[in-house]
């Protein structure tokens, strides 16, 4: 197993990286750090894809001129172009969701004055309780009248 892992060391690194990202995502209570964890996870996927696209001894998939006006077209010359496309998509998606998540975090900060998701929850429950107490009072008035 270890040998195989060493053979696939890029993938192994990617997996460990994604584990780090996931741990950050789950463990951090600070939203910004959570989002950073998310980005680490995404990066791990890009590394994984890049490793999957690579073929020993081949060039990037940009056609090379053969010197006589034509192009070298043998598939044995170029690496797999599909992972490059997938990584591109992945990056764009990651940028989009990061921006959106940050915008939401900013809004949350404006509302509760904290980036910590637990504190925000605590403040929210506090308000909820106040609200319920208000409802209870109102009900009691109805009952007593």
């Amino acid at each position, binding site marked *: 197993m270890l040998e195989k892992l060493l053979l696939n060391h890029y993938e192994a690194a990617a997996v460990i990286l994604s584990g780090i990202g996931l741990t950050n995502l789950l463990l951090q209570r600070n939203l910004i750090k959570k989002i950073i964890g998310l980005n680490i*996870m995404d990066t791990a996927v890009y590394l994984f894809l890049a490793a999957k696209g690579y073929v020993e001894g081949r060039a990037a998939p940009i056609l090379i001129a053969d010197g006589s006006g034509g192009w070298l077209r043998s598939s044995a010359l170029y690496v797999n172009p599909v*992972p490059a496309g*997938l990584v591109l998509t992945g990056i764009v*998606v990651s940028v989009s969701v990061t921006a*959106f998540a940050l915008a939401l975090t900013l809004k949350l900060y404006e*509302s509760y004055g904290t980036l910590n998701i637990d504190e925000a929850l605590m403040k929210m429950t506090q308000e909820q309780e106040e609200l319920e107490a208000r409802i209870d009072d109102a009900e009691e008035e*109805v009952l007593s009248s």
Partner: protein
Amino acid sequence: MINMFAYNIPFASIFLMMIAAIITPLIPNRNRLPEKLSCLMIATVGILSAYLLYSLTNSGQSLNFNFSMGHFPAPWGNELRAGPLEAVLSLVFCTAMLLSLTGNLSSTAEDIAPKRRNIFCVLVNLLTASLLALTYTNDLFTAYVFIEINTIAACSIVAVKESPETVRAALRYLIMSLVGSGLVMIAICLLYDLTGHLLMQNMHNAIQVLVATKSYMMPLTVSLALITAGLAIKSALYPFASWLPDAHGSSTNASSAILSGLVLKGHIFTIIKIFYRVFGLDVIHLLRMDTVIFILGLTAMIMGSVHALRQKNVKRMIAWSSVAQVGYIFLGVGLNTTAGIAAACLHIIVHACVKPMLFTAAGGLSNAAGHKKGLHALMGTFYVNKWAGLGLIAGAFSMMGIPGFAGFASKLSLTLASFDHATVVWALSALAASSVLNALYYVPAVIVVLTHNKDAQKNFTAHAPTLSYKISMFVFLALNFYLGLFCVPLLRLITRGVNVL
């Protein structure tokens, strides 16, 4: 052979919704023009889907077709695929989306600032487009891209109602969803590495070869588990459903209706496609994923209802009930038979029609009670807004599975499907227990709504429901009874659709 017009409908429907989304920011934001445009487009796509369904069922033996996106055939280019099941689902999605929008026009206007309303329409159009794309796509990576659109748009329409509560709910929803997307992405990469394809049909063939030669079984299992887990988080299967009540309970009524009724279903249908088309039922059974799904479905059915019992806010209660209903669907998927998947699809349709109705009704009732959402505040609201009251009663009966209402049809087919399965007793007991629990929280709500209370009624804002509300509620009710009474042809159609899936 199907005619050319119908042949282009899957592509056209996705495209029309996309163009509607892109054009909406450009049109002036007054006179409700964006809303009108969205409704018009969704209605058009709904009619197109109906026509597609009609021509598919009348086209002789070839029930499904592939539509290649571009000049290059299948394994090289992208592809869409349409069959009866896809057509039915897109028809249902469009109908439910349209009704959720029109039914909640007034509450949308109250909840969402005027400046944000055209953006709300953009998001709704994007959601519809992504749902349609998820329904029709034949390519796993396209599915991933549209899942992302779906996620961002869904989180945004939670946050579109401006309040700290919704922001927090949206954030939680987003983070959970992103974990899900991450898992899906990793799984797709693994599958691509194992098969060398992204197209579902080719992946299926490659996986069959792999399974036959017993190679790469471990990566295959892991990728299946990851993709299922990722999509299960997004479709709120029980242990991963903690985000749902916040998101669905706090957003504006139209958003709740759309999210509960449709967005979850898009992801579930993706799971069904992956099970049925990418892996194949035999492989799923071999890798034991059906048992896992079955057990999770059972748990969700019970636990969703148990949580719903403890809610005091009517929208949160309905949201938790969605978790239970998702459990029903996964139960059908976990049976891992054609009949089970057909029953699951029927329940998708039933729930897509009933849950928006319940949310719309709850919105109408809480509007009548002076914008209070607590269950006790709704006392006697039936007499203020009878359409909403009727909607709540019909929805509640449907969720309980009273014969004649939509819910009974899907419950019956689920049960009959589970008779072919070894675990029929478990399925039956869970169905029975879940029905009782459903009744235990829906019936009190109905009773409260029907209870006269002179004191509370003084505070009511007695404005009559608008015409659009009445019409949508009427259509919802009609759909409910239609599904309850005429479900047999539909079920037959779905079964045919599943067979050619």
